């Protein structure tokens, strides 16, 4: 017994309280942080930059409401970037059930959306049931699983954007932010592997180690990793979004985590040595 042992047994209550303070303060008192885009971020940026007028992009929001607080800023940045490109057509579709209303949220937050016309430059196809089967079905023939758009409920063939779009072969790029790696694996199995359409993604950050595997295997074209990845993307677009705002919190909380780790291990080694002496 002694201070060494006590250091390893700080009660959860104090750990939680301090964490709560460290979570809130940096949001109220912003700390400016320098950012240099990593090659991961640049690859996503350049993939979208290289799109040409007339290219069709399939935008699949599978973050659900549960992934939105972390991934939403990245979704908004990607939508904004696609809307800045002249002549690039964006098709929104969802396979995760709570995602359809998020499209309106993302489009409303993207400043360039006002320049784009619904039905000509972008369309919201809505929700497709059946998860992986739905993905395979959508790829084989869009019109077999979708007859009306989500926004107005009108037959999709009334929109000029849908002319000459039949199946997965008509898309140049898939953008799929997800709240679980399984959604991305489904897209790889059903879209990349059979149709060779490149996929860019924002995986939930805990699945970054998985995404890296698919990225190294070439099954994933590029992805945004972590809060810094999202913040870097906002910087590339000249936006000040929630990812940049939240970056300062990562500093306080992560430093806190490292300090706790060090304290815990010092306590562990000191109290273990005492035991050995006895």
């Amino acid at each position, binding site marked *: 017994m002694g201070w060494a042992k006590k250091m390893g047994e700080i009660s*959860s209550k104090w750990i939680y309280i301090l964490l709560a303070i460290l979570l809130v303060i940096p949001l109220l008192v912003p700390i400016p942080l320098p950012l240099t885009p990593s090659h991961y971020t640049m690859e996503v940026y350049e993939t979208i930059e290289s799109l040409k007028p007339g290219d069709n992009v399939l935008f699949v929001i599978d973050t659900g409401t549960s992934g939105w607080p972390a991934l939403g800023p990245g979704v908004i940045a990607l939508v904004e970037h696609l809307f800045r490109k002249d002549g690039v057509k964006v098709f929104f579709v969802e396979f995760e059930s709570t995602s359809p209303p998020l499209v309106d949220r993302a489009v409303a937050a993207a400043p360039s959306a006002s320049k784009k016309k619904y039905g000509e430059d972008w369309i919201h196809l809505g929700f497709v049931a059946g998860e992986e089967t739905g993905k395979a079905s959508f790829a084989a023939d869009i019109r077999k699983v979708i007859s009306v758009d989500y926004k107005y409920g009108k037959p999709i063939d009334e929109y000029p954007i849908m002319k000459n779009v039949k199946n997965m072969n008509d898309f140049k790029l898939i953008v799929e932010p997800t709240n679980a790696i399984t959604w991305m694996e489904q897209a790889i199995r059903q879209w990349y*592997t059979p149709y060779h359409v490149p996929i860019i993604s924002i995986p939930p950050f*805990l*699945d970054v180690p*998985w995404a890296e595997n698919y990225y190294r295997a070439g099954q994933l074209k590029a992805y945004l990793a972590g809060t810094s990845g999202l913040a870097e993307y906002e910087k590339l677009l000249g936006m000040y979004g929630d990812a940049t705002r939240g970056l300062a919190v990562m500093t306080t909380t992560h430093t806190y985590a490292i300090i706790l780790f060090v304290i815990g291990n010092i306590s562990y080694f000191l109290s273990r040595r005492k035991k050995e002496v006895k």
Partner: protein
Amino acid sequence: MVSFAHPLTIAILALAFIISYYNIRRAKIGTLPTLRRKIPAVDAIEQAVGRATELGRPIIFTPGLSSLETIDAPQTLAGLSILSYVSKLAAKTKTPIFVGVSKATILPLAQEIVKMACLEAGVPEAVETQHVEYLSDQQFAYAAGYIGIMAREKAASNIFTGTLWAESLIFAEAGHAAGCFQIGGTAVWTQMAFIVPTCDFVLLGEELMAAGAILSNDPEQISTIVSHDFLRLIAIALVLIAFALTLLKVPVLSYINGG
């Protein structure tokens, strides 16, 4: 015009059919090899039960949050096989067990398993000390219920198996803080990262299914693991052959990639 695509994909499927059929046959006539690889966590189960008996405190157990009607069925099945074994061991010394169940379809199964285990152990009245409770089908309510039992009953050992998701962190950490002897087992990668530091013994990925097969002593379950090993060897061979051929400048990779 008929043309063919993806011959390798079909070949692997056909191979899997043959391997599976062959091993099921071997299981029937009893020529299946035994699973010789040691799994420390399997031996640790006895230790977990023993510790609870010594301290006179109960064991707490979960077969995971998934059911049998999804793709996660093998994990749940393994969890239930382990439950049967734990229940048998505990029945002999009448050590109490609390089983927290999260799916309504698993509840009757778990009750039946516990009852059968007590019968097989020759102590049918021990079923009185083995409680199977339905907690909640909601993740966090389930976790709260589980921690609740852990604290109320002062559990000595915590064994959690099967498909675990985000909630596992909550009860693994609570069990660690309460000083439980912990055995965790799951095939969910993101949760394995948490059970390794929080548990005394772990069943990682397929170790869980293998442990279930070994403990259940069911030839059918063992045959599945043996089949996996066949294809695993083929995978290793494929990697090595592809590596060798690539070094010899034979363009084999594009062929494999095309399926």
